């Protein structure tokens, strides 16, 4: 199976999520990013490569430094996806509410019959 390279793959990993959060405020030098993590520089480079392939960051050269810049537009796809689940669960809870109201009515009926 070909490696998934979409926004969902990009944010599935906690280290990559942290990298996005770090560079969300301002572009950061790759070394500076790596300093925030316990894992090796190589591991961070690989995560940044994946983020690039997923379209979430771009790496720009400035002299001898390489800076990582965030591209947040893609995250819109995620919130759209999540929103559908939110709508789905809201409808389920509406259904549960109706069901519980109905149950109560039935119970009340049963009680009044007994009396």
């Amino acid at each position, binding site marked *: 199976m*070909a490696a*998934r390279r*979409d926004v*969902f*793959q990009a*944010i*599935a990993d906690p280290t990559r*999520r942290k990298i*996005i*959060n770090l560079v969300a405020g301002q572009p950061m030098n790759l070394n500076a990013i790596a300093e925030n993590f316990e894992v090796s520089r190589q591991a961070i480079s690989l995560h940044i490569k994946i983020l690039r392939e997923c379209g979430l960051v771009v790496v720009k050269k400035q002299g001898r430094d390489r800076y990582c810049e965030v591209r947040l537009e893609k*995250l819109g*796809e*995620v*919130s*759209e*996806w*999540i929103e*559908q*689940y*939110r*709508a*789905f*669960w*809201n*409808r*389920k*809870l*509406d*259904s*549960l*509410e*109706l*069901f*519980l*109201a*109905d*149950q*109560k009515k039935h119970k009340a009926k049963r009680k009044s019959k007994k009396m």
Partner: protein
Amino acid sequence: MKNEIIVLERQFDAPVSMVWKAITDRDEMKKWYFDLAEFKAEVGFRFQFSGGPAPDRQFVHLCEVTEVEPEQKLTYSWRYEGYPGNSFVTFELFGKGNQTTLRLTHKGIETFPGENADFAIQNFRDGWNEIIHTSLRNHLEK
């Protein structure tokens, strides 16, 4: 990026025992949730059901109960047969007399969709409404 997690809270005009029964009793679940062959609020219990945006676009949901605290908390995993990814749905109940607050949390949704077109976002839009809402209403108004 906290919005990957769905958290919904809803207050019901029913005691906690009644809400717990509604989310764990197979016959009651059938009336508002999904029609399962069996359900047990026991860690390790596995269940599956079919659901999707349209009758010809159904996905087999595979779930396993991972956490049970009677009348307080129920968690199960939630994934789709034949697709990568896994998520977790938690129901938490907070009873107060004849009122119950239900907090629903769904984590890990972002692990699902990928390059597979069947799973494209648009395919999921609106579809659930038809199945759940309409059928439940019909049932209640009989």
